[in-house]
């Protein structure tokens, strides 16, 4: 089947992730929605790689996975640190960096 379908699915997942990032308040869930967007990107990459027939897209997708893992580690570390300092784990409350 044509690649179009996969790309469409990827677009839907990306939009869902984008909506989630702007809607949710819990930073953990925001990070999850960020994962959604990354995965959508991965799907598109794999689709294109299949289209062209070379493995470059797959390598790209693997590297994206690595990056996502690192980012999750750090993000979760931050959230844990926040929790340990007894700060509210809520992005609307954490707004001290304002103008």
């Amino acid at each position, binding site marked *: 089947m044509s690649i179009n379908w996969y790309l469409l699915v990827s677009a839907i997942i990306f939009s869902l992730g984008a909506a989630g*990032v702007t809607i949710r308040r819990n930073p953990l869930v*925001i990070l999850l929605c960020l994962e959604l967007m990354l995965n959508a990107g991965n799907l598109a990459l794999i689709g294109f790689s299949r289209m062209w027939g070379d493995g470059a897209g797959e390598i790209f997708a693997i590297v994206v996975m690595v990056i996502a893992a690192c980012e999750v580690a750090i993000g979760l570390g931050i959230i844990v640190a926040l929790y340990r300092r007894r700060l509210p784990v809520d*992005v609307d409350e*954490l*707004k*001290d*960096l304002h*103008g």
Partner: protein
Amino acid sequence: MSISVTPWLVLACPLVGMLTIALLGKKLSPRAAGTIGTLAIALAFVFAVLTLVKLQALPHDARVETTSLWNLVNVDGVKIQLGLYVDPLSTFMILVVTGVSTLIHLYSAGYMQTDAGYVRYFAYLNFFVFSMLLLVLAGNLVLLIIGWAFVGAASYMLVSYWYRRDTATAAGLKAFVINVIGDIGLVLGTLFLFKTMGVLDYDQLFAGAQTAFEKDSPELVIAMLLILVGAFAKSAQIPFQTWLPDAMEGPTPVSSLIHAATMVTAGVYLIGRLHVLFEWAPTAAAVGAIVGALTLLIAGSIGLVMTDLKRVIAYSTMSQIGYMIMGVSAAAYVGGFFHMMTHAFFKALLFMAAGSIISAMGGNQSLNNMSGFRKALPFTFVCFLAGGFALSAFPLFSGFFSKDTLLFEVGARGGWYWGLYVAGYIGAAFTVFYTWRMIYRAFWGEPCKEAAVVIESGHAYHPAEHTNPHTGDEDDPSTQEVEDSQVGFPGKEHNFAEKSWQMRYAMIPLAILAVIAGVVQLPFGVTNVLSSFLEPTFADTIVAYEPDNPGLETFGLILSSVIAIVSLACAYWIWVRKPGTSAAIQARLPWLHKLFINKWYFDQFYSTFVVAPVIWIGQWARDSFERVVVDGAFIGGSSSLVKAGSAAVRAIQTGLIRAYAALVIGGLSVVLLYFLVRGL
């Protein structure tokens, strides 16, 4: 040391003196500063004499030397050099300037001894001498204007020297503003000349003037009239004369140097230097002569009623400069410059002697309080007599011969110049009266209490509080904000000639010269040192008059002598024999007295018609334009614009992560849209 080097050395000496004193001022003791200042000018005098010697070694027809250091401006069509012009006239001037300045520096070393600003004083004085020498030696009009401006600045600094007195600073400002008005005239006149002739060097200017302009053409007349404005302002002629009496707020040696012997003669020098152009524009020359004559009469009349000693001498200066301006405008060059030389001697002497008697009075300058100083201050008295006889052109003194030569040459022109001749002799009568009024009132009669103190103790009289001689307000340092305060007020101790050797040794040469200086140019050609010396400069004069007119000369000599002797006798009668006479005359002609004592209402006229409108315009501009447009719209507007912009930008920084994320996604959608549209 050739003649192309000595004039630079003449200029360099006071400049180096000024820089040394100014830069090392704090570290020098006052005595050292005074010595350096005096020696610098003395050295300049030595170099001036050397220049004279070298000049006279040149052949008679070619007694001009132009030397230049470098080009100031050298572009297409304009070439101006840092160049000096050494000829008999400028050598004459530098000799007079450096000679009299040396003596005045020596006098100041004694007179200003207890002043707290002693070092500053000598720096200013050296700067003044440098500027005057620059003005006189300048080889083109640009350098002359530079020297002219510096001299005005030096005069301002020295007049407002005791700057804690409001009257002194106001007087300095007045002198400066009127000088600047003259500067404007001078610069505009120079521009007019430049516009037609394209050059500003003296030799090229004088050579080309008669071909570039027609005789008495309007452009040339306007240019020369503007230059005359400059000359009048600097030399305190009507209508720019109001600054000179106020400039007496400065210390007496300053009045002696600047406002008697040197700076005020700059106008005379200017007219003499540019005589080629003035003769080619006879209208302008006529204006100059008439203004000179008017000034000498008006100033003489005011001098008859002034009660402040220094102001009497100031008006006398104004009157004598009127003579000189009248003379050089009427092509009486030898007479004019001869009178300038003798005037420098006797007027400087008179100011120095006046300084001595004012010191003995404890700072009081009013003739109403002075009397009977003959026994108290004998040396000063003799100097006053020498200067007074010379000033009043008593026969055989220097002033007699110089004034006579001047008036003879004016009268010999004939025609309407006879009017000036008559005015000159009327002015001579005024001169005798105001001079001897001053001397009789100060030295004859019963000794006043200050004189009594001097006779008894040999010290100057010390008033309980020191006051401003003009307004009588106390010189009170505690009213000033700064603690330190003797700087800016005169020193408490006063030196007069009998006590101070510097003052005496400065006055003696001048007294001698005031008596015998006439010998250089005796009438009937008996001696003609000066005229033959100045002849190369004025050889290109086109004014024709008979040089030999023994009848007129004899008449003039006799008339002068008669006026001098008779007026002296009258003055003696009025002020010594019958002391109530002057009060009676005053009572008979009160309106005349009022006119004279208000200085012919010039000050009031200027204050109403010039000063007040300018102040009003300034205030109106400040309130309407400056506050509203500049402060409000430009500055206020631009700053509030920036503030508003930054406030708008600041509003985006909410700190909310979701908002930022939304912005990022929004931006992404816009970018995608762009690429989509582009690809379609």
